[in-house]
């Protein structure tokens, strides 16, 4: 994936509205950008996330950032080495993972400790809902 495909800027959160979850998700987007720009991390044996996986993850996180009003921990993106990636949110024994394969098809959200079905659709709406559940729990 080329650096040119990385969005040029990450929007600043509105100053007048206190939304700690938004700040965390914007930090997560910054980390996602850094993940794909760090070319020294990858080689023929350990592949960088594909452009499709990166873009799909970005869209889901950006949608969740708009929708989520609950305080959430920042997410930690990580490559799988086959072109896929994972974005993980942890709080105590609870976890939410955005699981994104290289091809994007078959992406899902995994959650643990939230009294929810473990596998959920990978949408920004669902991620915002699960993050709100994580904050309540």
């Amino acid at each position, binding site marked *: 994936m080329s650096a040119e495909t990385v969005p040029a800027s990450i929007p600043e959160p509105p100053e007048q509205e206190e939304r700690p979850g938004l700040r965390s998700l914007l930090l997560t987007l910054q980390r996602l950008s850094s993940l794909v720009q760090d070319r020294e*991390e990858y080689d023929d044996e350990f*592949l960088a996330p594909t452009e499709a996986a990166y873009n799909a993850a970005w869209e889901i996180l950006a949608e969740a950032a708009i929708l989520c009003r609950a305080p959430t921990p920042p997410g*930690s993106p*990580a*490559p799988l080495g*086959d072109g*896929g990636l994972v974005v993980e949110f942890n709080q105590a024994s609870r976890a939410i993972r955005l699981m994104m*394969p290289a091809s994007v098809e078959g992406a*899902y959200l*995994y959650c643990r400790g939230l009294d929810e079905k473990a596998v959920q659709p990978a949408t920004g709406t669902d991620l915002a809902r699960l993050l709100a559940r994580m904050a309540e729990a």
Partner: protein
Amino acid sequence: MSDPAREARLADETEVFRAIKPSWVHPDTGRLSAAAFLRSARDRDGLSVSRSRARAETTYQRQRGVARLLAGDVRGVSLAPPDWPLGMIPDPTDLDPDHALITGLPDPFSPDDGEKDAANQAADALVALASYPA
């Protein structure tokens, strides 16, 4: 013809080491990410580890140490349902005669939701069992 090396299993007390990429460590907590133990499409035979700490420490050009596991602990992971017994077998290669594989890991991108769940459970269990930094 079967490969005798791969039919053997590592003794329970055998230490194995998994190379850790910098991005597999949570920037806020320093804890391992589940990504370190999720099977990728490239890990068809299993997840690579080494009995040699020195070799594991030089697996990647850039890495952040190694995680240590015991073979018996890995085999003791129980996932439900369905049951996915994990294994630990030697898999010597030209580059690393001490190379070994964690076998039986479910596919995190299987079409079956139960297998996806099991793959994430397995990764969580291995993160909890691993000593990191080792």
